[in-house]
């Protein structure tokens, strides 16, 4: 495809998860020439991650919700590939995007694994970013021990490998996502010692109205209740893991009850022993660095995450750039698909979404927002931190260093914190510690915009994913674009 891939596409789609698949299919079915770039080796994204098709050619979607939707999208995706309107570049990461004349997008690519990239650059007139996100993390003592994973990381492990990363699990954090993780562990034969949810379920009561607009969710809830009962999984609310214990890897966790602010209730601590994998999930952080680098406007969503602003056509504030899925606000796969269809259609021909579609999206957004309000990050989460708790795992920056830089040197935003202490300067470029560093640096500042500014500085990541100097030395030059 090398020749074709060098001539500009009508639409480029970043990500082949729920949002990206829908966007690609919608655009291709409207006659647009589409290119899809995805870091993974096969379509599905996080939600529909599955065993490699090389070893399991017809996955049945065990443990997956909405697998029918996936199969439908996938067959349309494959059909568009076979007619040549859609080019799919798996194992490909977009590391930078530029604009050239007429506003055309120039996407710079690097291999996700391995060392060679066949197509280092693609150009497209319209761009749909469906880059999804990753688990949001909060540091706590012992979280750097091997055996501690992201909750979604455990989920991804099971879905992709068909095995478990350990035997006895604790899943902790907040949000309804902890439920499918625990359910999948149990279904795969693992023992879930406890699920610790920092919020109280009564937090849901004020939001039942929003939930009733999305009936599928109630059903899912009932399903999980049954699974939990069957596998005798303890679902502990108002409970947090206060530290992970272990020498060379996690072997136990200490848990405690918390009040509504997240403060530990004295005397409620207890040790859960014989645990080898601990999964933490505090919601998700949308992956918006590419959109931000193009100048897309951001806002803070109900869950405290920095997300990109999108209108009813899923258009960002940057002409030609459309957004769908987690990048517009964490809201689950159904919403991601709905937004993807709209984004793909408007990128292809400027089409306005149908009223019913717009309403569906609205309903799901309301539900997501209710979910976020019911599962906040505990206000006092940082009370668990000791002086030597690592905040930045890559550069091994401790909590004491962070507080000293804030209180003595005046590092009251994440950017300055990074300059003074190296938080976020390592391999992951602040993906893991960014949220926590923003909270810790802005702590005590009264400025309302401080957290937004701080999170924005974390979302600036001019190299979205590492690549070699050899690759940079062979970049073709772009036509200059005057913005």
């Amino acid at each position, binding site marked *: 495809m090398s020749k074709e891939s060098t001539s500009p596409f009508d639409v480029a789609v970043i990500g082949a998860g729920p949002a990206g698949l829908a966007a690609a299919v919608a655009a291709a079915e409207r006659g647009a020439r589409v290119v899809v770039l995805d870091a993974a080796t096969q379509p599905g994204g996080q939600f529909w991650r599955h065993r490699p098709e090389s070893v399991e050619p017809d996955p049945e979607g065990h443990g997956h919700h909405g697998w029918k939707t996936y199969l439908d999208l996938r067959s349309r995706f494959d059909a568009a590939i076979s007619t040549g309107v859609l080019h799919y570049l798996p194992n490909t990461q977009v590391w930078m995007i530029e604009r050239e004349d007429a506003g055309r997008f120039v996407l710079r690519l690097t291999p996700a694994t391995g060392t060679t990239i066949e197509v280092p650059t693609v150009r497209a007139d319209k761009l749909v970013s469906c880059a999804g996100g990753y688990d949001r993390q909060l540091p706590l003592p012992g979280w750097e021990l091997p055996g501690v994973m992201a909750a979604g990381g455990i989920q991804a492990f099971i879905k992709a490998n068909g095995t478990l990363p350990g035997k006895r699990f604790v899943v902790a954090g907040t949000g309804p996502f902890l439920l499918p993780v625990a359910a999948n562990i149990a279904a795969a034969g693992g023992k879930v010692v406890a699920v610790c949810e920092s919020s109280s379920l009564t937090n849901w009561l004020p939001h039942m109205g929003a939930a009733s607009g999305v009936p599928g969710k109630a059903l899912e809830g009932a399903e999980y209740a049954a699974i939990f009962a069957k596998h005798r999984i303890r679902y502990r609310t108002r409970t947090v893991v206060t530290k992970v214990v272990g020498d060379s890897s996690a072997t136990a966790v200490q848990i405690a009850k918390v009040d509504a602010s997240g403060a530990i209730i004295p005397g409620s601590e207890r040790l859960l022993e014989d645990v080898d994998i601990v999964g933490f999930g505090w919601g998700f952080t949308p992956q918006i660095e590419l959109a931000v680098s193009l100048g897309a406007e951001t806002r803070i969503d109900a869950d405290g995450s920095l997300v990109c602003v999108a209108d009813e056509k899923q258009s960002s504030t940057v002409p030609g750039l459309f957004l769908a899925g987690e990048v517009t606000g964490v809201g689950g796969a159904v919403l991601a698909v709905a937004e993807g269809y709209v984004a793909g259609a408007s990128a292809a021909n400027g089409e306005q979404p149908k009223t019913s579609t717009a309403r569906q999206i609205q309903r799901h957004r309301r539900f997501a927002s209710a979910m976020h309000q019911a599962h906040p990050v505990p206000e006092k989460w940082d009370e668990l931190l000791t002086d030597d708790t690592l905040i930045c795992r890559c550069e091994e920056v401790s909590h004491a260093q962070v507080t000293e830089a804030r209180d003595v040197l*005046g590092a009251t935003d994440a950017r300055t914190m990074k300059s003074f202490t190296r938080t976020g*300067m390592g*391999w992951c470029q602040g993906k893991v510690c960014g949220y926590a560093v923003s909270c810790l640096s802005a702590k005590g500042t009264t400025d309302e915009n401080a957290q937004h500014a701080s999170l924005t500085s974390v979302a600036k990541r001019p190299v979205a994913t*590492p690549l*070699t100097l*050899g690759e*940079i030395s062979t970049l073709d030059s772009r036509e200059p674009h005057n913005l």
Partner: protein
Amino acid sequence: MNAPSDVIVIGAGVIGSAIAFFASQQGLSVTVLERGLPASGTSSACEGNILVSDKELGAELELTKFSLDTWRGDLAEHAGHWEFESKGGIIVASKESSLASLDRLTRAQGEYGIDVERVDIPRLREFEPHISPDALGAAWYPDDCQVQPMLVAGHLLNLARKNGAKVQVNTRVTGFVRHGETVTGVTTDRGEFHAPAVVNAAGSWSEHIAALAGVNVPVKPRKGFVMVTEPLPPMVHHKVYAAEYVDNVGSSDAGLQSSPVVEGTPAGSILIGSSRERVGFDRSVNTEALRQMATNAIALFPFLEKTRIIRHYHGFRPYCPDHLPVIGHDPRAPGLWHASGYEGAGIGLSAGTGKLMGQALAGLATDMSLAPFAPERFGEFTPNTMISQESAA
């Protein structure tokens, strides 16, 4: 109203912070006004070299030597705060023509008393085992040092604070308070501040500050990128750069120039520079600059071809058309002082500048003459030198 002080410093970059520290050491009461947070300007978008090697003979080299003494003398007890390291610099020539410029430069520097030693290729390989086989000759500068610039600014401000200085962050200077011609304070978005001496240490934005006082200080932003590699075990042991770099530093061309500057850091990442272009405060990524820098760096250290970068950043060097900083009292606007225009050397020159400005502000004789850096060398404000678009941002 805010309580008056002896000195107001505009800008909390390395320069403003050093002045605040040394002025407060002189017993002066100091207020630092910074529109953002400490070191939020160029001082956090640069590298931290204190270089004698890249300076042509003249006043700037004189100031560099003075500054080096200040780093190693007055500031020695605090050196641990900002990771001061005497790691030494190496200039490598890989072309016959650059070998000739290196000959000329090192001979002159040697005569001037700079500690420089020509090294042959085997010796060069001892210094830098991974250097390109194309290297033809090199020079070794044991006096080239390094600091972590953000920590310099942060800690100097903190030390100044301990001497009683006030540091007002998130406070933008918007104009001057005048008594007749004389500057007696500044207006900000957080009220007025008064002092008989106001120091413009606003780096690349100092042309704009000067214009607010009606004087011309033609400091322009000269953009530069730095690429940061993945952390590696030590592969590059010194600051290593190509002989062409010295020519680029001295050039006044507005177009893109790049020459390889490669250095290892204590954190394991290798920093790769350098580019220079005058494009105002345009923050967009110049792929051509990155491409050239990568190509040049690989030419110097071939192993870098397979090394990954994890980020890059850019900063705006405060460039002065005659390549000399602007330091001292401005008779065109009595009460106004400047310390700006350090271009690519502000980190290295901050310590010396701070010390000299501290002396001058306290009314003492300065250890070194500031005459070559006099602000009034740019003459009066004329309409065509009026604040250019470049510095309006």
